[in-house]
């Protein structure tokens, strides 16, 4: 299958090495014999992954991390559970035509169990045909399942690379709204924009009016497009002198 924007053979090789080092020989033998071009076998393996591979945290060396980041910049699998990594790897194995592949992946998304969804969204940066998954990524941001949001937001380079400004701004707002750790969002600084800062300041003011606090990370993002003096006034709740009322 073509359509990968990176060296798929190299990625396959390093992920196979990590997986083999993280699961039992029995599980590895099972994994290798799955016929990923057969739809039923592919769906079945995806669903059954945790009961075959277990859920322990993967073993990965610093060297393997570096190699991964060279092959697919920004893609990290640190602290992943084995079933998550194995599912992501499975998703990039089928060698079938583009239309069929898209339908299969979409079907997995629409019937996904909680951790299946985590694996699916984690796989966005390494799936082939990256242009196909933009809407799906934006849809994922509408989820209210914390784990799913984190799979999209934390250390995932896909959203920053592919989302349009509206969807990106929605991701940042949703992250703030759901108390996510903002520093784990890939592309937070690169994708910052004046419209986003307007939205954030409006949010901060609403929170202030309600007597609630905001994550200080909000001000760090706002600082890029806001004059320092004004920002200080707003931080202290002096909205009138900041001219924002």
């Amino acid at each position: 299958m073509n359509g990968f924007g990176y060296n798929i053979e190299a990625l396959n090789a390093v992920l196979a090495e990590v997986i083999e080092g993280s699961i039992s020989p029995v599980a590895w033998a099972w994994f290798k014999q799955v016929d990923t071009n057969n739809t039923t076998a592919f769906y079945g393996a995806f669903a059954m992954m945790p009961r075959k591979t277990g859920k322990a945290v993967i073993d990965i060396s610093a060297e393997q991390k570096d190699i991964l980041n060279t092959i697919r910049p920004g893609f990290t699998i640190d602290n992943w559970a084995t079933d998550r990594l194995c599912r992501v790897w499975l998703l990039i194995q089928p060698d079938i035509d583009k239309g069929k592949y898209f339908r299969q992946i979409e079907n997995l998304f629409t019937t996904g169990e909680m951790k299946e969804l985590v694996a699916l969204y984690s796989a966005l940066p390494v799936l082939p045909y990256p242009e196909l998954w933009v809407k799906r990524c934006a849809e994922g941001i509408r989820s209210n399942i914390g784990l799913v949001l984190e799979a999209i937001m934390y250390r995932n380079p896909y959203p920053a690379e592919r989302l349009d400004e509206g969807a990106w701004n929605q991701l940042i707002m949703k992250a703030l709204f759901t108390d996510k750790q903002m520093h784990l969002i890939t592309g937070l600084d690169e994708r910052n924009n004046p419209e986003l800062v307007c939205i954030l300041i409006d949010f901060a003011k609403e929170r202030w009016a309600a007597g609630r606090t905001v994550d200080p990370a909000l001000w760090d993002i706002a600082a890029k497009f806001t004059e320092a003096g004004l920002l200080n006034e707003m931080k202290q709740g002096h909205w009138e002198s900041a001219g924002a009322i």
Partner: protein
Amino acid sequence: MCCSLNIEDRQVPAGKPEAFDISAVKGMKFFDPHVHMTSRTTDDYQAMADAGVVALIEPAFWLGQPRTGVDSFKDYYSSLVGWERFRSSQFGIKHYCTIGLNSREANNEALAEQVMEVLPLFIYKDGVVGIGEIGFDDQTAAEDKYYRAQLELAKEAGLPVQIHTPHRDKKRGTQRSMDIAIEHGLDPYMVIIDHNNEETVKEVLDRGFWAAFTIYPFTKMGNQRMVEIVKQYGSERIMINSAADWGISDPLAVPKTAALMKLNGISEKDIELVTYSNAITAFSQSGQIDEADFAVSVDQSAKFEGNTVLRGGQQPRIDKSSIIIS
């Protein structure tokens, strides 16, 4: 699936009720193997967690009115393994489910055929501990057909079966459900017969099936009667559940009944078996239940950056007794 009576028909018994004193069973863990959480509020989750419920099973069932398309079923099954599972995790309760086509909706054959086609997509998913709740409602030919088809599916997948027994013609319906399960070659030890009462329990146990009792006001078992059942039949292969749903029901039925058993001198070992371990023994034949997962802090995959705080955030508590909402 419950509720065949109208609310207006119900007579609330007179007399002052005894207060539920959780201290009788403080520190005990409970497993509710039949409760429809999609119909319940977050207050219920909170109360269940406070009362010691550490895990539960949500069987797929009828939603109170019939569905008209297969996608409604698909979305419902997805929510059982997705959104509802997450909602439960926020209260520290491990959520499992059983997946199946319920008996009422088996009567829409055109739709039932389509539902049977999507079931294999869900039954192998993580945390799906059985096929359920299936069985008879009206005992029609269509119900018989899809009950049998799903028994075959359970056999193929190596999953336990959770069987709903009918309100009307209950005794014969229960016997027939067991006869058919045996006819299809299922091991009775893989089959949980639900909604038992004094009339059905003996035969269910004698034939080697698991006997589940639903503690549900007005239409099913009361827990005083349940205490008598355990006194008479012991604790082997007996389990209790709340089957709490969109009707007047009680998500604390399991801990409350445990407390009542304690007050009535039933041994702690027997209480533990009927309110926790037996259900785990029966449903863990699916290979999908690991008691280590009940405590969220020991779930490795729930850790992040070495932090044991539940990913996605534990729900904050609010003071319900206060007039102030902030």
